[in-house]
């Protein structure tokens, strides 16, 4: 549980701060000026910090909503991402956050209203076009939701814009705020999944695959649109059997109509990020594979990536029409 909360004094009275104060009455509260003075300090040790991260409550001032990098989105229409939080409760070995930030502390930007204003401006600007907004780029969308209450506020906001999609990307089973309300037709709850054995080894602190699948089925049963994200794909000798079994488990009893989209993506790291992640998990087999490096990107290499791509595409076609399947290439 969170023991220490650093807060920017400017947002001490903010309703989100108040909500967290009520939820964590025993935590120690420490005032700061700006979150960067703590979050961006040099000589932090991500791995040790991950043992007992603090929560930093901050106000975001700019860059609320950004265009997604090419290769990320589902198709041609305009897509954006936003991050109301930096860092994650979970500790996946391949997570790019560990290479991106020097701190493992959680930063929660409490001024959700400014994110929504910025999203409204985008909607106005692209009037008439279908836009998609991805949440959970620098965090997990739902893992912290019991504390942050973000999903509920985001869903309230997006319920006024039925032509604009919101994707909540998650590994969490904290879905109660979703189940307590009517499913929103423009919200996709997208779960990241791997075969159970792989997730057990790599997705530290995240809910097991069986619990994630059960959450998917509950949400689908309640009318929510589901996204399935097999990203990153992990190579191991029996990967075909493992992924086939995973697809079968997920689809067993799940109405394919409830599936909005499926995407998959290869395991890839920018070189610097790979080095950092490998130095944090020196003994993990994920970082012992003889990866290839091309143009500063470390990957399994074209041969394995193509094999996995071809297999996934044909295997997933057994369950769902091709136009709902996408490859993510970043």
């Amino acid at each position, binding site marked *: 549980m969170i*023991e*220490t909360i*650093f807060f920017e004094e400017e947002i001490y009275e903010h309703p989100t701060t108040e909500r967290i104060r009520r939820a964590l009455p025993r935590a*120690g509260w*420490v005032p*700061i*000026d700006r979150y960067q*003075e*703590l979050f961006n*300090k*040099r*000589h*932090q*040790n991500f*791995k*040790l*910090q991950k*043992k*007992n991260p*603090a929560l930093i409550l901050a106000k975001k001032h700019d860059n609320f909503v950004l265009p997604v990098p090419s290769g990320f989105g589902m198709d041609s229409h305009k897509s954006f991402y936003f991050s109301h939080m930096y860092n994650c409760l979970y500790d996946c070995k391949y997570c790019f956050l560990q290479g991106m930030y020097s701190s493992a502390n959680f930063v929660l930007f409490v001024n959700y209203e400014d994110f929504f204003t910025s999203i409204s401006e985008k909607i106005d600007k692209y009037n008439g076009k279908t836009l998609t907004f991805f949440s959970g780029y620098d965090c997990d969308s739902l893992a912290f939701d019991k504390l942050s209450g973000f999903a509920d506020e985001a869903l309230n906001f997006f319920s006024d814009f039925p032509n604009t999609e919101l994707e909540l990307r998650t590994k969490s089973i904290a879905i109660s705020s979703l189940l307590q309300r009517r499913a929103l037709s423009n919200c996709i709850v997208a779960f990241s999944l791997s075969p159970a*054995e*792989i997730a057990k*080894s790599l997705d530290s602190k995240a809910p097991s695959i069986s619990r994630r699948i059960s959450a998917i089925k509950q949400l689908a049963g309640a009318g929510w649109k589901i996204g399935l994200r097999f990203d990153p794909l*992990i*190579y*191991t*000798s029996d990967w075909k059997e493992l992924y086939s079994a995973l697809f079968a488990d997920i689809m067993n009893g799940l109405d394919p109509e409830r599936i909005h989209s499926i995407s998959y993506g290869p395991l890839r790291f920018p070189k610097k990020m790979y*080095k950092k992640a*490998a*130095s*944090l998990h*020196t*003994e*993990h*087999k*994920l*970082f*012992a*594979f*003889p990866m290839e490096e091309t143009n500063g990107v470390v990957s399994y290499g074209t041969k394995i990536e193509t094999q996995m791509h071809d297999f996934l595409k044909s295997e997933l076609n057994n369950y769902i029409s091709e136009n709902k399947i996408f490859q993510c290439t970043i």
Partner: protein
Amino acid sequence: MSEFTDVENNTELQFKFCWVTALRAEATPLIDAFNMKIVENKSLFPIYANEEKGHALVISGIGSIKSAAAATFLKNHLKINDHSAWINFGIAGFFKGPIGDIYQANKVVSKESGAAFFPGLRLSKLIPAAILFTVSKPENGYKEKVLYDMEAAGFCEMAPSFSCNELTYVIKIVSDTPSASSSLITKHLVRELIEKQLSKISDILAEIEILVEEEKKRLSIPNEVIEFEKRFKFTETNKYKFREIYRKWKIAFPSKRLDLSEFLNSQPKEIILRLEKEVLLNAEDWNAL
């Protein structure tokens, strides 16, 4: 990159805890408790150590700059490794009593420069936390609800670069408050206050030691690698490549040892290539779990 684990034969003694105290009176109870002996008394900063128990200590004198300088002196003098914990320990003023209470500083502010530091992982199960102001003149007003000292900010400026911020700690025992004037502090009182907290200090050290060991394991270079690097002239680039491929090779073949006699007539590049080949062959039937 020096992140290996095969270190069972590495008998080199290493310091786990590096203490920086301002006053001799603060140092003495620690020197006694951990059976440290003087190793340097000719310089401005006396150093005490007990290699076997893993403790080293430097007495800095009063002031932020001295604290930073003494920590640096200790680091260089004993060639302290980069997985040791650094602890600024001593007495401090506080806005409330009782004297003798022990705190971990979770935020240290230099009143002179305004710089803020956030040392250490929180040890809240063991010790309460407080904000600490480092002042340049003794504080007798206790105007804010914080601890007051004269060293921690200087220490925090420097010590995280020796290992990391999560292995840098500021631990203070309350010696004076609005109702217990600093003019009453004596050597005897300091000793008494610290000795009363020695068992708590042991608990804290046990917790920090877990982190130290974890970092040690992550950063250690296996003896096999050291042997090879001594025997062959690796360029910096090849050294990096060798360590990286060795790491992968060792994970792939945990029970194998890299036998020097098999490579006696080899060039560094050939050693790297041979390991790469073995790792690649192994990957054909790769088990990622």
